[in-house]
Structures are given as structure tokens and as C-alpha cells.
């Protein structure tokens, strides 16, 4: 039976290693945005954050040849960008969507500029030395475990802790939250910064783990897939993990299947079509946090 032969790649662990590797950045990106959006702040600049995280961790990785400094640098970038976005979205009540669009554009541009100016290439930085790279564990990356752990922790934080409850209150109905004594501004800023740092971790993974350096447009649309995953997962970190596995499966499947049977493009479109359907209310009811994207001004 030809089908068995064609699908035989499903039997090899390398397929699953690849699937997990594909899942990591989109789930990390989605986790960060789930936290931010649950508190009421939208950030569509995930592409940009992933890019910047990868860029800076690569840069510092080369300069210091030290894995932890490199990771720290990437997280630091996430912190700064998160603060900027929080400032605009929370305190200045600026347009959260537009500033995300600007962030993406900026990151794309600055990424190329720094790439060329630092390493003289338009395509890729040199490979990072081993000491600045995340070691693999028998073909699997520790980031996989980290991602799963972070997904579970995020879920636990949001559903089971006092601050998670308050964060969700701020995102559902900030007026009621303030009436209950919660500082909505502060919680939103912290959530946005934490979210941004988680997203930056996706970039760190791409640079320090998978690719071993920075390449042009390293995020390759993953930021937007992460956004789709946020909606697809109905703002639930565990479902985001599952959704990430599904999306990762689709990509890995399309990479492994011999060409000509089913067009890549069909598989690549699955996440986007699925997200649209979910938004329309099919398959499952997607209900965003009540006050997401709307700036809250204290009366």
C-alpha cells in the first residue's frame, strides 16, 4: 500500500523532534500574548519582539560567548519593548494596534541593518560558538520542556493564584476591578512586560537553540501564527500548547511528506483558516477578555 510508505515518516522520532521544535516559538509567543491580553492589553508586535530577541541574544552571544548572558540580553530586550508598549497602551491610552504594527516594521528594518553592519551579511550571522548555544538532549531541546512547563505555569498562575484572578479581572471589567481595589494600570503594565519577555524567549530559542544565529526575517511569520494561536486557544495556555502541537504537526507534516501529494500551501494555511473558523464561533466558542484592547482611563 503506497499510503503506508508515504506516511512512514510518522514512525521516526526525528519527525516528532521537528514538530516539537516548530511548536516551541509559536507557543512561547502565544503564551506571552495570552497573559497580556487577559489583562486587557493587545500587542500585535510579536513578530518584532521575536526578531529583536533573536537579534540581541545572538549579538551578545557572539560578544561574550556565554549562553546565560545571551539569554539575559534577549530577555532584556523583551523587557524594554514591553515597557514601551505598556507605556503607550496603558498610561498614554495610545492605539495598541498601531504601535504593534510600528514595532513590527521597526524590528524588520533594524534587524537587517544590524545584521549587515555587525556581520557583513544580508542573510545570516555566523554560527554561534558551542558555549553560547543551548545544548541538546538526545536530539530534543530543553526548550521543549521549558515551553511545556511555562504553559502549565501560566495556566496555573492565571487560574489558581490571587494575582492571576486580579489580572483577569482587570482584563474583563477594569471598572469593577478598580472598585474592588485593584490597581489596573500596574497589573496591565506587569502583564505586558511579562508577556513581552515570554515572546522574546521565542526569539532566543530560534537564535540560540535551533538555528544557532540570526537570519534575515528569522521570525518568518511566527509572530502572526502566535496571534492566531492566542485566539484559537481561547486565551487558555494549555489549549495554546495543544494548538501549538497541532500547528507544529501541520508544518512538520508538510515538510516531510513527499511533494505533489498535497500542496504545502494548504497545510500552511490551516492555522489561519482554523483561527478564522473559531473566531466565527464554529468548532468552539471563542470569547475574548471583556475589555481587551480598550484603554482604561481612571475616572
Amino acid at each position: 500500500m503506497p499510503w503506508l510508505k508515504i506516511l512512514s515518516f510518522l514512525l521516526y522520532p526525528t519527525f516528532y523532534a521537528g514538530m516539537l521544535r516548530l511548536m516551541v516559538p509559536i507557543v512561547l509567543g502565544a503564551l506571552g500574548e495570552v497573559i497580556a491580553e487577559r489583562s486587557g492589553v493587545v500587542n500585535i508586535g510579536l513578530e518584532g519582539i521575536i526578531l529583536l530577541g533573536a537579534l540581541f541574544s545572538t549579538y551578545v552571544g557572539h560578544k561574550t560567548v556565554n549562553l546565560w548572558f545571551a539569554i539575559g540580553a534577549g530577555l532584556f530586550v523583551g523587557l524594554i519593548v514591553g515597557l514601551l508598549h505598556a507605556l503607550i497602551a496603558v498610561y498614554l491610552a495610545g492605539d495598541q494596534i498601531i504601535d504593534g504594527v510600528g514595532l513590527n516594521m521597526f524590528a524588520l528594518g533594524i534587524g537587517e541593518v544590524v545584521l549587515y553592519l555587525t556581520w557583513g551579511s544580508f542573510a545570516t550571522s555566523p554560527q554561534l560558538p558551542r558555549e553560547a548555544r543551548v545544548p541538546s538532549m538526545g536530539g530534543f531541546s530543553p526548550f521543549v520542556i521549558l515551553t511545556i512547563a511555562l504553559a502549565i505555569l501560566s495556566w496555573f498562575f492565571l487560574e489558581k493564584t490571587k494575582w492571576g484572578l486580579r489580572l483577569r479581572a482587570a482584563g474583563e471589567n477594569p471598572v469593577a476591578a478598580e472598585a474592588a481595589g485593584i490597581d489596573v494600570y500596574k497589573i496591565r503594565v506587569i502583564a505586558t512586560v511579562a508577556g513581552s519577555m515570554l515572546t522574546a524567549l521565542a526569539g532566543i530559542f530560534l537564535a540560540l537553540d535551533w538555528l544557532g544565529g540570526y537570519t534575515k526575517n528569522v521570525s518568518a511569520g511566527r509572530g502572526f501564527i502566535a496571534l492566531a494561536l492566542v485566539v484559537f486557544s481561547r486565551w487558555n495556555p494549555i489549549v495554546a500548547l495543544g494548538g501549538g502541537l497541532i500547528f507544529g504537526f501541520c508544518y512538520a507534516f508538510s515538510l516531510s511528506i513527499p511533494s505533489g501529494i498535497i500542496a504545502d500551501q494548504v497545510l500552511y494555511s490551516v492555522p489561519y483558516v482554523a483561527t478564522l473558523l473559531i473566531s466565527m464561533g464554529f468548532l468552539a466558542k471563542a470569547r475574548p477578555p471583556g475589555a481587551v484592547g480598550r484603554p482604561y482611563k481612571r475616572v
Partner: protein
Amino acid sequence: MLVVSGLTDYAIEMKGIVKIYPGGTVALKGVDFAVKEGEIHGLLGENGAGKTTLVEILYGTRRPTAGKIFIRSKEVDVKSPRDAMDMGIGMVHQHFTLIPVFTALQNIVLGDEPIGSMGILDIEQARSKIEELMEETGLKVDLDTPVENLSTGEKQRVEILKMLYRNADILILDEPTAVLTPLEVKELFEFLKKMREANKTIVFITHKLREVKAITDVVTVLRRGKVVGKVKTDEVSIEELARMMVGREVLFRLEKKPREPGEPQLILEDLWVLDDRGDFAVKGISLQVRSGEIFGIAGVEGNGQTELVEAIAGLRRVSKGHIILAGKDVTNADPHTLYELGLGHIPEDRHRRGIILEFTLAENSILGLQRKNPFANNMGILEEEKILDWARELIKRFSVDAPSPTIPASSLSGGNQQKLIVGRELMKNPKVVVAAQPTRGLDVAATEYIRETLLRMRDEGRAVLLVSADLDEVLMLSDRIGVMYEGELMGVARPEDLTIEEIGLMMGGVKLDEIRKGGAS
């Protein structure tokens, strides 16, 4: 829970409270308000009397311009609701502050969450305390249902439990029965009596006379920012309360030309309309407005008037019943059709509905007419000169104080904006005009002008339905009035055939035929 201290047994004493808003409106003119511990104290008054302002000051959401507040004989400065909560004051507002997707339990503990080890939420700790509270008070609610799935009565119970969970012993309830079914009202009253037994102090704001008699021990009546009386409930009759609430010595009347009203132009038949919550706001209202008359609907706001007007104007669905305009059944027609048939609507909330602030005066003057000749030609292109001429005429005829029709509507004063809206509607030459709260927020000159215009409409033979929470206005302008209470008309009569007491009683919930049959209590 209680600290008995001091020389008096007053839980609350507010002395000489004055509140002047930045615009110059005086909401409270030196109010003294004292509530003893363990008493259910009613705060009675119509719209604008100042009841809500007074309790907002007590609860810290507003600052007084002058006056002192004493809680349990200690002078205090309530700077925010958090302060009030710390002092043991709790308030249930007319509009609930709940998180719809959270369960009742989560809503109750929000902000004061019990924590277990390592900061993990231990809601179950609170559950037993709250279940105890529910037993004690008789306020039962399913703690694990998301609040959005609860009935309004149940939501209110959650709000009350929120207060009690934080050990409030002064409970303020602002018009709590507005959203309850009769059975729920009974349950609420049972609860309040239990609280009184537990020596809690309760402030109960209402405009409903029967409730005052049913549940309060003492009642303070406010009118136009002043206290007009403080009496023991069982020593006063409903009629006296009505008189105090509404009492006017002089009923100011404008010169009205006597007119024979013509045919009914607007007929409502047994109209039932739902509000946003899914309960009926209008319950079987029937009335007729004839050409050449002003039919005024009086009543405290929140008794369904807004929904009634929206239904007539085609902005809200009618569940049952009919609306007949100029002889045609227009139930559930859209606003455009209603305009075509001769309906003019002066909306209650002009900034939201009546004008587009960023548009120019000229653009606003044709709102609703943007597709009609002569303002647009057959290809849909606007005829700017004709629009400007129209606007200029409007400005002249209705004395709108504006240098030119090309200024944005936002630069007009409130009064002039309202004149713009009134003018626009009138220039459409409507057969029927529905005017909702037409002079709210306007200065004296604009108010006078609008009222004269309403009379002019009547004299021109139009049928005018006037809905206003300003009783003076309704009495002054109407040929016939109806009083709306809880979605029904308590009675329809000519103003000159009603005593002030009867009006007060109707506004407070007593039907006219009951009053006239003799005795309402």
C-alpha cells in the same frame, strides 16, 4: 463587628453637606442626614433631589464642597470607596460592578482574596464563611455559576454578599428594587429585617412610597437638594410622604391657548418592550396622542421611559403590542420609515444619539435626510449649497447662536446643540414629535426657548409626546399627563384635574383609580 462608642448611638451623621458641581449646579444645599445604628433609614425623593449625590459623598466616590461627616461619632474624611470599605461602609449601586465571567464566589472575594500556602488562591477558605453568611441572611446564590448567567436579583445578592464578606455594618442600597421581581423584593426585605436584627445600619434609597412604608423605620425626604422632612415611618401616611416628595406650593403654568385636539396621530396599544437585561421595561402601555396636544409622561427615571421612547422611534424591538402612526401600523419599523411617515424624535442623550459632534452644523442639520432630494441628487452626490441654505434657515428660525453653518457641532453650547436638534426635527415637518428629556442639562434661556418651541409645535397642530423626569416641565406644558411607574401607566388625566398628592402617589407606585376609590395604604 460593632463598636459601640461615643455619646450618641448614631452610626452616620452628615452635617451641613453642600455639593456644588464645577458647572455651577448646586446639588445639595446644606443637608443634614443622621442615621441611628440598627435602623433602616429611607432616603426618599424624585430625580435630581440629591439622594444619590448624598450617598456618593458618604461612600467616597464624590467629595463634598462643604460639610462634615461623622461615622460612629468620629469625624472622618472619606477619600475613596476603599476608605469607606475600611470604615465598614458598603454600597450596592444601581449599576452592578461585577465581572461577568467570574463565578459569584470569585466576584465576592475579589480584592480580598484568601491565600493558602505560596500565594496560591484558596477560595475554599472563603467558601465556608460565605456559605455561613448565606445561611444567616437567607440570600442564597449558586456560588459556582458565572455571574453573567445569574438573574438580576441574584446578581444583586452577590453585590450584597460582597459587602457582608468585608464585614460592612453600614449598608447603603441605591434603588435596589428597580431590578427585582415582586418575589425578590419580598426576599430582599426579609434580608433587610434580619440585618436590622443583627444591629446593622441600613440606608435605603428609593422613590417608591409603598416600599418606604413597608420596610423603613425612619425616612428622610429630599427635594431639590434640601431636606424637607424627617419622620418616623409609622407616624406618616403615604399621602403625606407624596406631598413632601413632590410638594409644590405654586404650580407654574405657561400661557396656553386653549385648543381642541384633533385626531389621534400616535396610538400605543398594549405595548410590551424588553430592556437590555431581558426583563420587561414597558408592560402593556396604551395611550393616544392627538394632533394639537402635548401628552406628557411624568415619572422617576428608570421606570421604562427610555425604552418606551426607543421603541416608538424604531430603535428598540417591540415584543408585544402595536404602535400606530398616522393611521399606519409601524410596530418594529426602522427609523427611516418612521421619518417618512412623519415622526420626529428629540432624543434623550443628544451627544450619543442626536448629533455627531465632529460633523459641521450643516452636516448635522440633514442627519436622516442625507439621501433625499434636494440634499442629494439622483446619483447620490450631495448638494452642498442646498444643504448650507437649509442649515442657515435652521439657524435663523431656531435662534441657534452660531457664526456659520460650517463650524463643528462640538463648538456649540449644549443649549444650541439642542436647538439644532429640535430645529432639524421640526424642519422635517413631522406630524408627531417625541421629545425625551428635552431640556436636560440646558441653561435657563435655552430651556425656556425649547419649552416655547414645544408649545408652538402643539399650536401648529402636531401631536407631541413629551417624556420628562422634570415634573414641573411636564405639568407646565402638557394638556394631558400620564405617570409611568415600573413600566405601566398609573393614570392618565389633565394636570388641572390632579392634586399634587395624587401625582406624588402615582410617581410612588399607586394607581390613580385606587387613589380615587379612596385610600392607598
